[in-house]
Structure formats: C-alpha cells, structure tokens
C-alpha cells in the first residue's frame, strides 16, 4: 500500500508535533509514530524548559547563551545556540498561548526554577530560568501540542514502525514502514520527510529512557548511507533511581535537594564549590561515580543518596509530586521520609543526524543537503549541546528546532510545490524484503539475550568513565554481537502486531550505531563534556575542538571532522 502526503513526520514527540503543527497550517501533514503520540518519551521530561524570561529574577538571553556554550564544553556551535536562546522566548510564549499549563507565580506569570549549569552573570551562581509545570513539564507540553495537532487535523499514523527512508539522487522520496495494527508493510510517498525520532538510551543497561527509545531514526539514516555526528557524547544523568534508572529530575536539586554519600557529607562541595548540586550533569555524574568507585557509596553499593527530606512534605507535593508518586509506587520509598538511592543513568544523546540551523539534514555532515529531508530534537545534532547538554535545554531544543524545521518545510513547499519526485519501487521492495528476511533467519540466538549483553557492555565499558582497553573490548563485543545477530530466531511469524519482529528491527538499529558510539569514543582521545577518558583526562582544544562525522560504507566506519562554530565566547577552562 502507498500512502501519499505532502509532509511526513516520523516521531510524535515534542519536535515532531511542533513541526507538524507549524506545517499543518498550510499543508497536508502525516505524523508517523511507533507509539501513540502521547506515549512519546518527551512526556517523561520532568524538570522544565529553559528560557531567560526573567519572570522571577533578573535574567538575560546572553547569560543563557554563555551557560549553554560553557555547558557544552565549547563544542556547541554558537550560531545554533544563538538561535536556541533567542527563539526560546517566542517558543515558550506560543506554548503558553496554546494552553500549556505552566506553574504560575503569584502575579500569574510562568514560574521558573533553578537548574544545573544555569547561572547568573556568566557563572556567578544559580539562576531561576527553567519554566516548569510541577515535575511534569514534558508531559504538559506534549499533551498540549498533541491537542493542537488534533485541532489542526494532523493525520496520525500510530503504531507504524518506520524501517527505511527512500532517498535517490539526494532527494527524499518517502519512507517505508510496518503497520503493526493493520499487519502490512506500507510505503509513504512524500515531498518532505522529517525525523524527530528521539534518542537511544536503550543501548545502555541503566537508562532513564523508555523501552521504545532505541534510536531507530539513527539506524535508518545510517543504513541509507548518510552521516552521523558526535555519537560518542552520551549524557549520563546524575540522578537515576538505583537499579531502575528512572529519572529523578534535576528539578529536585533545583528545589534544594542534597547529594549525600555514605559518610553523610554533601560531597559536591569538593567538586563544584560554587554551584554545589547544581553543577552541570557531566560533572555531577562523574562526581557521583567517583564517590562510588572510591567506596563511599551507600553501604558499599553502587549508589548515593538524593535527600529531599528537608524540603518538607508541602513543597514536595507542590513541586515534585510525580517523583514522590513513582518513588512510592515503583521502588517503595517515600522521599518525604527516606532519601532516594540514585546512580548515574544513560539519559540523552548529544549527537545524532547532522542538520543545519534550519533543520535540513546534511548528507555528508557538512554542507551537502538531502533535498526535502529534515530532522529535529534528540535524534538530530545541530549542535547546540556540544559535548554536554544542560538540563531543560533539551525540551527547548525540541520545541525551537521543531518549530524552525516546520517553518523551513513550509518555505520549501511554498517554493517547490507539492509535486513529488517518483518513488523508486525497487528500493521500496528491497526495504520490505529486508523486514521479511528477519522472519526467515535460522538460528537459536534470542533477541532478548543479545540486547541484554549489548546493554551490559555499553554500561560498564562505555559509561561515565571510559578508557582505551575497555572501549576496545566493547568494540569487539559489539562486533561479535552483530555476527550473532545474523543467527537470531523470531518466534512470531505473523503480520499482526508482531512485536517480536519490531524488537529485532530495533536491536538491528541499536547494534548499527552502538558500534559508532564505541569507536567514536575510542577515536576521540580527550576528555570533553560527557566523554571522559581516564587515559586522556584533559580537554585538548588543539586537536579535538571539532565535531566527529561518521559514515558507514560497506560495513566500515569512516571518520571525518568539521570545525566548531565559535562566534562570541572563546574556549576557556571550565570550572563551576
């Protein structure tokens, strides 16, 4: 079956929906997602969305600009960051006008809270910058955007698993997908395609990400022979619930929670005396891991405590109700009475599909565009986050660059019309054959087992701390898992809602770019932001102030580099 639309957006998270909203004012938009739109993982974002509105205390766009650049360990492209911080104001006011229920100040303005790495006057101390809706900010924005899409009659194709993009002569023609409910393979023919497919936290054992976050978009792009950028930078969130990895928002620390080790001390004063618990995530995660590695984890276990008790029940109920609720339900701890055991958890991928500031995908990562192909959100790399993302900048990026990509698509369609280039049937058929091929693989390997081993090795060898030996072992392991993956067996041979098949397809994607993450980390011989190499503990601006671009040709990874755009802030030593 072939479905035709002007615009096809893959992924129904914040970036996808925001772009859909923008484009749906003029064109016929379809949103394709492997979940229902409101199930997207953007909804799990808790803490807030950054914008220097200055509703509560003095704040300036420039301060936000500086913090983001410094937070990125100077790897962020400053032209893109400038768009991010400038567009933050209209983007958030638009969300508010759409009905997003932000928490309010007594005067009725959008309320703001402190967040890690966001400072006043270029690093003097924490500033109230994160606009929030209790600890459900992502949920509120996601539902608001979905509701607006319903209003604009956006066509949703829910539970369609996208398998490939169809590109020919550097022009996007459409996508292929597996309609899980209908039980058939479909091709979607479109003039423009946008990816907002999210991150790949599920490559790691302990992750705050949903089971669905397998970075399918990256796998698809890689398979189409396009480049990926900066994949080695994986953010570990400092406070994931011990053993579960569930995110406890930085908003908790923004409201004043303490990090405590086994000796009962607030150990952050050793690592970031000025910002304490509100230091950026890479630093905080490393500090926690160091405490654990040096034997000061709680009862010698792999965790430290996040203590909210002194905030009092009233404040927790008002500002952090969701955290309290899942702590009680899922781990059986009431943060009002007990500290929460936490450990660093794989959280966000700074790298992704290389795009320019207008959201246009760059085939070679530098300048060559793929006509009609766009990306925004976590799956893309603009790169505003550089080597380390600041909390609350992710929602902002998704909204701001989703909006920009939407506008670019409209401009493109206005200029070029909606007549589509033809859909090459052989490519569509090849894509369908590939999916069908999974079902006929013969062997005894189980998808679940391979995935588990992959997650395990990624967590232990490619985690907060990395070194050459471990990375080499990991690379070997990933490659051997790829071999074993050839011999998987799929129990379910049917067409209807075959999650056995989609899990195999997901694992295929995971394995594809896991290799890139590991080898990228091995390749980059320095420590910058989220990438910390024990054997190269210093940042190396002479050799490594550049983005990694990786392509896979005939199973071999080829590296290329691109300079960082620096406009206003020259790299300095990064201290908090």
């Amino acid at each position: 079956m072939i479905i035709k639309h002007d615009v096809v957006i893959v992924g129904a998270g914040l970036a996808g929906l925001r772009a859909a909203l923008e484009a749906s004012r003029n064109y016929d938009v379809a949103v394709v997602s492997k979940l229902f739109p409101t199930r997207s993982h953007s909804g799990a974002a808790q803490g807030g969305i950054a914008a220097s509105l200055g509703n509560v205390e003095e704040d300036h766009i420039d301060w936000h600009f500086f913090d983001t650049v410094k937070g990125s360990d100077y790897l962020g492209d400053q032209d893109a960051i400038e768009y991010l911080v400038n567009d933050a104001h209209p983007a958030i006011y638009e969300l508010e006008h759409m009905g997003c229920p932000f928490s309010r100040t007594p005067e009725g303005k959008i309320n703001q809270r402190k967040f890690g790495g966001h400072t006043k006057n270029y690093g003097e101390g924490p500033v109230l910058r994160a606009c929030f809706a209790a600890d459900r900010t992502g949920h509120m924005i996601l539902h608001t955007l979905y509701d607006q899409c319903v209003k604009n009659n956006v066509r949703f194709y829910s539970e369609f698993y996208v398998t490939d993009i169809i590109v020919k002569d550097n022009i996007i023609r459409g996508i292929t997908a597996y309609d899980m409910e209908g039980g058939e393979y479909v091709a979607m023919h479109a003039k423009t395609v946008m990816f907002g497919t999210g991150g790949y936290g599920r490559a790691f054992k302990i992750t705050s990400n949903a089971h669905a976050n397998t970075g399918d978009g990256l796998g698809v792009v890689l398979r189409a022979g396009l480049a990926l950028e900066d994949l080695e930078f994986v953010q570990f969130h400092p406070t994931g619930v011990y053993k579960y990895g569930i995110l406890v928002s930085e908003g908790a620390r923004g409201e004043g929670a303490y990090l405590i080790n086994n000796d009962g001390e607030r150990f952050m004063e050793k690592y970031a005396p000025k910002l304490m618990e509100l230091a950026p995530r890479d630093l905080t995660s490393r500090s926690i891991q160091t405490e654990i590695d040096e034997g000061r984890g709680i009862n010698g276990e792999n965790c430290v405590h996040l203590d909210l008790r002194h905030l009092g029940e009233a404040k927790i109920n008002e500002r952090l109700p969701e955290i309290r609720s899942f702590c009680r339900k899922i781990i059986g701890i009431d943060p009002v009475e007990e500290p929460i055991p936490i450990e660093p958890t794989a959280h966000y991928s700074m790298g992704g599909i290389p795009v320019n500031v207008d959201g246009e995908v760059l085939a070679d990562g530098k300048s060559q565009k793929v006509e009609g192909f766009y990306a925004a959100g976590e799956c893309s790399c603009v790169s505003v986050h550089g080597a380390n993302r600041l909390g609350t900048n992710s929602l902002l990026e998704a909204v701001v660059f989703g909006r920009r990509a939407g506008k670019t698509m409209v401009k493109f369609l206005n200029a070029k019309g909606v007549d589509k280039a033809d859909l090459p049937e052989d490519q569509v058929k090849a894509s369908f054959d590939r999916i069908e091929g999974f079902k006929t693989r013969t062997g005894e390997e189980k998808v679940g087992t391979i995935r588990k081993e992959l997650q395990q090795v990624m967590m232990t060898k490619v985690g907060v701390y990395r070194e050459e030996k471990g990375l080499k072992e990991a690379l070997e392991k990933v490659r051997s898992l790829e071999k074993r993956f050839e011999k998987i067996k799929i129990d379910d041979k049917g067409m209807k809602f075959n999650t056995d098949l989609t899990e195999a397809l997901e694992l295929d994607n995971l394995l594809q770019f896991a290799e890139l993450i590991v080898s990228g980390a091995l390749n980059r011989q320095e420590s910058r932001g989220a990438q910390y190499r024990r054997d190269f503990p210093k940042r190396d601006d002479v050799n490594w102030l550049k983005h990694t671009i990786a392509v896979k040709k005939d199973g071999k990874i080829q590296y290329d580099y691109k300079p960082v755009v620096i406009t206003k802030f020259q790299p300095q030593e990064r201290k908090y």
Partner: protein
Amino acid sequence: MIQVKVKVYRFNPENDQQKPRFETYTVEADPKDKVLDLLHRIKWEQDGTLAFRRSCAHGICGSCAMKINGANMLACEANLKNFKDPTNIIVEPLQSLPIIKDLVVDLKDFFKKYEIVKPYLINKTPPPTKERFQSPEDRQLIDEATWCIQCASCSTSCPSNWKNPNFLGPAALLKSYRYNFDSRDEGTAERIHVLDTNDGVWRCHTIFNCVEACPKDINITWHISQLKKKLVSREY
C-alpha cells in the same frame, strides 16, 4: 526469588483455530518485581509471540494499561507485593475494547471520543506578546485534570461504558473539564453541547470504578460532577 504462575490472555487473529484462550507461564521473580517485568521475561525468554504494549516503564506514558487480577492498572506499576497472592497473576487486555492481539486492544474509538470533546484551548482574543496571566488558584483548578496520561484504564473500567460503547467515557470527560475550566479558555459554548447528550456526562452514575482504576490517582468522578453542575447551572 519466588515462582509466579502468570495466566495470560492469548488471542491470535491470524490463526482461526486459536480461539481466545489463557496460557499459563511459570516465571522466576523477585517479590518486588512488577507485572511488566514478568511479561518481559515471558516474551524474551519463553514465548516471543506474546504481544503487549509498553514503553516508559515508570507510569508516565500510559502504554501498558491492562487488567491484572481483575482490575485495570499499569503493568509497570503493578508491584507483586501488593497482590494478595503474588504467585498467581492473571493478565487480561482492557475490557470492552476490540482485541487486536493478545493484550493489545484497539484504541481507535477511545481516541475518537477524545477528539470529539475539542481537547484544545479555544481563545479568539489575540494573545498578548508575553504570556496570558493565570493566577495560581485558577491553575490549581485544572491541575488534577492535567495529570491524565490517556492510558484508557478509566474508560474501560466503567460499567456504563461496557453497556453503551457510545458513552464518551471518563477520560474524554476529564479532558473536557481540563479545557472548560481553564481560566484562559473561551470555548465552553462550542464544547459543552457534546457533553449534554445522552452519551455525554449523564451516563456517569458515580460508580467510582474510574477513580479506582486511575494510575495517576485522579478523582475523575469529581471532575465529571463539576461538569454536570456547570451544565445544569447554564440552563436553569
């Protein structure tokens, strides 16, 4: 570790010989495990053909709502230690919706009802350059209603909905409350006639099944009663 007998509802639409049936799996589990963990273990280690929805695994996405031991809940939050007998678990799909496969139900109608209540802010006044002001009290009024994650636990636990599938159901009504009672909204006149029909709020008989089923602890019935009062006061 304990041995848990998990009785799972199975239905494969592509195999005509297989009528809906229950299949029992024995799974090793920690007493603190969630039902979702058990389902994963079944799928990944024993029987790959089992189909169910899940995503975030901590109760915010709303994918894994299902009937466990006779009551709707999220599988990711269904802690074994909360069951009277944690070694015998019965898992069924949400009641009264068409079944696509195993535990996966067809949610098309559920979302159609959602769309009918016009679930978006309607405000014809041009917005100011900054935000529209809203007092914390006005914000508080809609707070509980915004917690909803559209998991469909409520609507499929409602006896009124079982008997009359046209009933809008608690989820859609809650959404309607969320926008009708938003101080920034001006669309009540456009929206409210949908509620004031035989298949609207009047099918709610304050049974409180939805409140028991809601994984986010929203008192949905309270919200529906506010809608009823609004309808009555509008007309008399």
